[in-house]
């Protein structure tokens, strides 16, 4: 069967990067293009970025998403979907596209409207759920987002999740049949981690020569468990460690205050946002990378640490427990400060052990290259197209509009 032409809908795509969706959609699209798939991406506009451009073979359509004043984020999302639908209707009319691939609830309304108007199969990748992100749903705002997720899941032909953990969450939270869910992990491109860099200079920038460097990379939010790492720092004061905490988030001010209260100002450095190259350099020079997540649908940071060769200490929560294996590719600790301190000490004080973890993790990371992920995704596409072509929902002809704008 010929590879389908796909339209991806995502509210973020480089250079607009809000979280993990942008790099995911970019890397997956790029890998699909290499396999002969025609990929269009419809996304929000971004200052300085072209309204249409071809990036590594991906046809990127950036839609004006800020043209209408909106009272709040939820309404902005609704209007962004209106704008996406309006412009993508024209894109779908002008191009031979066979399948719509939506990423998360943020594009649910547009994806579902387009599915029905063009009678094209819809596939949804659910990267995380509102229930999981918030530890339950506690107010109408969160219930609305949860309901949007449920709607997208109901309307999708098939659902892709990045881990068995996420699949189980969706199956139980949204009463989805297991047979509709495919597990396709996130991928990693190892090449940027192999680029020659002045690694000693990176190390000097963040730590004294005699200090060990322990790294955290991620959003500073409750679900990432970063507070447990901060609370663990006093337990490790004898090891002369510089803790580098990279990222932004609503917990930042609270973490800064807590670091002061613990008297760890000289040992903990909250860097804020750093560029990707510097972060890759930090992974390469780190003596340990701590991933203390409480909720983690997948854990792309683990793939980055594995690829760069940073020994990992992790809670093993969610998808992390599927990527990593205790005592083989990482040290698993419980989600509390004492246990995390134990894990860090174990890695830092046993050079042979940490070297073995590092080597095995690097070997394991090779199986997550984007080419393999694209092949799995293509398998899901092919299955859907086969079912779609055999069914009777497909229109006998797609009408071309006679629109004068």
């Amino acid at each position, binding site marked *: 069967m010929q590879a389908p032409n796909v339209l991806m809908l995502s509210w973020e795509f480089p250079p607009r990067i809000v979280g993990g969706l942008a790099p995911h959609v970019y890397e997956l699209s790029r890998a699909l293009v290499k396999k002969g798939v025609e990929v269009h991406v419809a996304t929000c506009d971004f200052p300085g970025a072209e309204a249409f451009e071809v990036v590594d073979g991906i046809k990127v359509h950036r839609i004006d998403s800020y043209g209408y004043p909106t009272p709040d984020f939820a309404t902005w999302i609704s209007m962004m979907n209106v704008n996406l639908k309006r412009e993508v209707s024209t894109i779908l009319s002008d191009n031979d596209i066979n399948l719509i691939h939506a990423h998360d609830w943020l594009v649910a*309304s547009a994806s579902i409207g387009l599915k029905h108007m063009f009678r094209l199969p819809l596939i949804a990748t659910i990267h995380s759920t509102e229930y999981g992100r918030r530890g339950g749903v506690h107010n109408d705002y969160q219930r609305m987002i949860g309901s949007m997720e449920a709607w997208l899941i109901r309307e999708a032909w098939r659902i892709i999740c990045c881990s068995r953990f996420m699949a189980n969450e969706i199956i139980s939270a949204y009463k989805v049949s297991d047979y509709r869910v495919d597990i396709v992990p996130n991928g990693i491109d190892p090449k940027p981690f192999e680029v020659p860099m002045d690694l000693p200079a990176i190390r000097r920038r963040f730590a004294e020569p005699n200090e060990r460097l322990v790294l955290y990379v991620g959003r500073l939010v409750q679900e990432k468990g970063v507070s447990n790492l901060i609370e663990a720092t006093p337990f490790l004061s004898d090891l002369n460690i510089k803790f580098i905490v990279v990222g932004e988030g609503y917990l930042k001010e609270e973490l800064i205050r807590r670091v002061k209260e613990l008297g760890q100002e000289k040992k903990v450095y909250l860097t804020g946002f750093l560029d990707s190259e510097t972060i890759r350099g930090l992974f390469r020079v780190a003596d340990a990378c701590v991933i203390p997540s409480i909720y983690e649908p997948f854990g792309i940071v683990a793939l980055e640490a594995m690829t760069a060769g940073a020994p990992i200490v992790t809670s093993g929560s969610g998808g992390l427990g599927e990527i990593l294996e205790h005592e083989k590719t990482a040290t698993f600790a419980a989600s509390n400060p004492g246990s995390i301190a134990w894990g860090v000490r174990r890695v830092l004080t046993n050079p042979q052990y940490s070297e073995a973890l590092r080597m095995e993790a690097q070997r394991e990371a090779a199986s997550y290259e984007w080419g393999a992920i694209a092949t799995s995704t293509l398998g899901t596409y092919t299955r859907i197209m086969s079912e779609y072509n055999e069914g009777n929902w497909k229109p006998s002809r797609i009408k071309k509009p006679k629109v004068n704008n």
Partner: protein
Amino acid sequence: MLTPLLLSWEYPPRIVGDMAYYVESLTEELNRAKTSVSVVTCRDSTGKYERRSDLLEIYWASNPVDPHVSVLTWCLTLNAEIERIVSDIIYDKKDATHVLDIQDWHFVPAGVSLKRAHGLPFILTVHSLEEQRSPGSSGALSSCIRGIETMGLIESDLVLVKTDQMKALITEGYEVQKDKIVVVSNNGPNWGRRILAVYREVARGRRA
């Protein structure tokens, strides 16, 4: 065969204001002229379809998302369901010539997308404007509704209004050309036939 598709957020028994009565009268007028009409509207009910006569079908949309945090998230989400219902009608009744007549701003986003997706002629009937309902309001909610009204006025093929005063308001306030706006009062005789003539004209593409 010309089949108008009337999209309205109210239709009896759901009555919010005068629009429900207007749309009901319009369907009666069009039926009197032997024209089959489909009304696509909304109501939280288990019934999704009602055939009131050989010439009148009602499609009830219910919001696929619950709860909502504002009237805008409710309305804009409902638009996707309206798109689904209208598209199903289009795919099921390929022989009919459909014209969209959208009542006020609520289903303008669906009208715009359906026009682009299916090439449907799109008429916007303006009963009132946000500027009249919330005079002088600079709040974000009102501004957003005004933005949707503007989108409808620009993207529609024709604008129907009931009074010359409304026509003047739109031409002055929204930079819409006078000849795109047609006044048909619903008080005069044969007003349904006059609207039907407008539908036919738009369907023939004279104004598209």
